[in-house]
């Protein structure tokens, strides 16, 4: 199957057309955030504080990259396990985040929020972190620099390969793929 090329931020119509198992090449801005950054973001939302970066309509990438070698924007940059962000994801989706990139299954609450808010969860392959790092054109830390690899980075990516894991229609690539090959 040929991958679909999409520009970020994703339009609602783009998200609507995506189905679990679709291969997508993303180009444009995405934001990294993982465990520690999520804990802070959701605490800020709960106390009504403004977020250090406007995430509405944006895609969050669950990633803590390796340090950049001189002359490069970033090192290797694969996804981390998404389920650790499950306790925080519904609040961020409600706040306006429209896409997430990670690896592995999501909770029922997150899948429900994906449907309710018309969002999408993409899977990337962790063991292709070098290839994914090569798709990053620029990277800058835009929040929580004290968190090191866990700081929020604004990445500009080009043809960044992902697979639709959970679509806004209730599809789940992990359930569907496994059912096809289980013996």
């Amino acid at each position, binding site marked *: 199957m040929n991958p679909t090329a999409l520009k970020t931020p994703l339009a609602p119509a783009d998200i609507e057309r995506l189905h679990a198992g679709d291969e997508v090449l993303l180009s444009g801005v995405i934001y990294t955030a993982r465990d520690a950054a999520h804990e802070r973001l959701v605490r800020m939302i709960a106390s009504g504080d403004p977020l250090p970066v406007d995430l509405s309509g944006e895609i969050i990438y669950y990633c803590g990259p390796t340090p950049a070698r001189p002359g490069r924007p970033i090192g290797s940059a694969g996804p981390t396990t998404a389920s650790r962000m499950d306790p925080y994801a519904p609040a961020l989706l409600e706040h306006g985040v429209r896409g997430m990139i990670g690896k592995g299954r999501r909770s029922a609450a997150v899948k429900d929020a994906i449907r309710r808010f018309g969002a999408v969860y993409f899977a990337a392959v962790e063991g292709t972190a070098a290839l994914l790092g090569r798709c990053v054109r620029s990277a800058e830390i835009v929040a929580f620099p004290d968190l090191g690899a866990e700081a929020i980075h604004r990445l500009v990516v080009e043809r960044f390969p992902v697979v639709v894991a959970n679509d806004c229609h209730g599809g789940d690539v*992990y359930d569907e793929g496994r059912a096809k090959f289980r013996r």
Partner: protein
Amino acid sequence: MRTVPAEAITAALRDLCITINHRMSADMLAALERAHAAEESEIGRTVLARLLENARVAREEWFPICQDTGTAVVFMDLGQDVHVTGGDIQSAIDEGVRRGYREGYLRASVVRAPLDRQNTGDNTPAIVYTRIVPGDRVTLSVLAKGAGCDNMSRLAMLTPADGRDGVVDFVTRTIAEAGPNPSPPLVVGVGLGGTFEQAALLAKRALLRPVGAPSPDPGAAALEAELLRHINDLGIGPGGFGGRITALAVHVEQHPTHIASLPVAVNLDCHSHRAGQVVL
């Protein structure tokens, strides 16, 4: 008595940390090639081809194989006729890891206290397991252990009545429940017997064996083959997107155990499995 300077341990570990994080081992590459040839799922083959391409780019362009460059788990076999001079061994090991991770542009992924979670900034301290062995050599094996797969590892204190079927069921269920999260296809380390903590250590040590090399014990080798068949019938596949190859290999390590016990530990390693060894 042979003298080994602590600095030699530091230098060897620095190099080993950098090497294993950039150069996928020949046994792991061969296992991925075999998986690519055998996989029936189209997306599964795509994932395996990309993992091999990733290994090439990592090697040629100096990108770490994975952004989770791991906790440095160091297994040291220290010959009893060796005298280490010029510093203490744990510090020498930590300094090697510190230099390797800093100078190799590897990620600092260790936090000081499990609940306060302050990053130590240099991926130290290393996790170190030492055995005193005959001879005058120091053998250092390093596993750059990713957390996504370590997190999905499990241990059970089964009973003798649970037997072989109980072991097969527990190991298979552990992989089934982990699903896509530990980044399959996996290398599965199984520790069987010993005591509670010994089983876990055996499971981790099993990951050091060349990927797919069967146990020299025929009984353990047969169990490995049976477990691999059950695991690959789960359908989880490369990346978890569905397919035939959920594990590349199962390695079983056994140890005598108590008449009342049947401990079994399952330690998972991901499709970026990184291990290496140096002898001083």
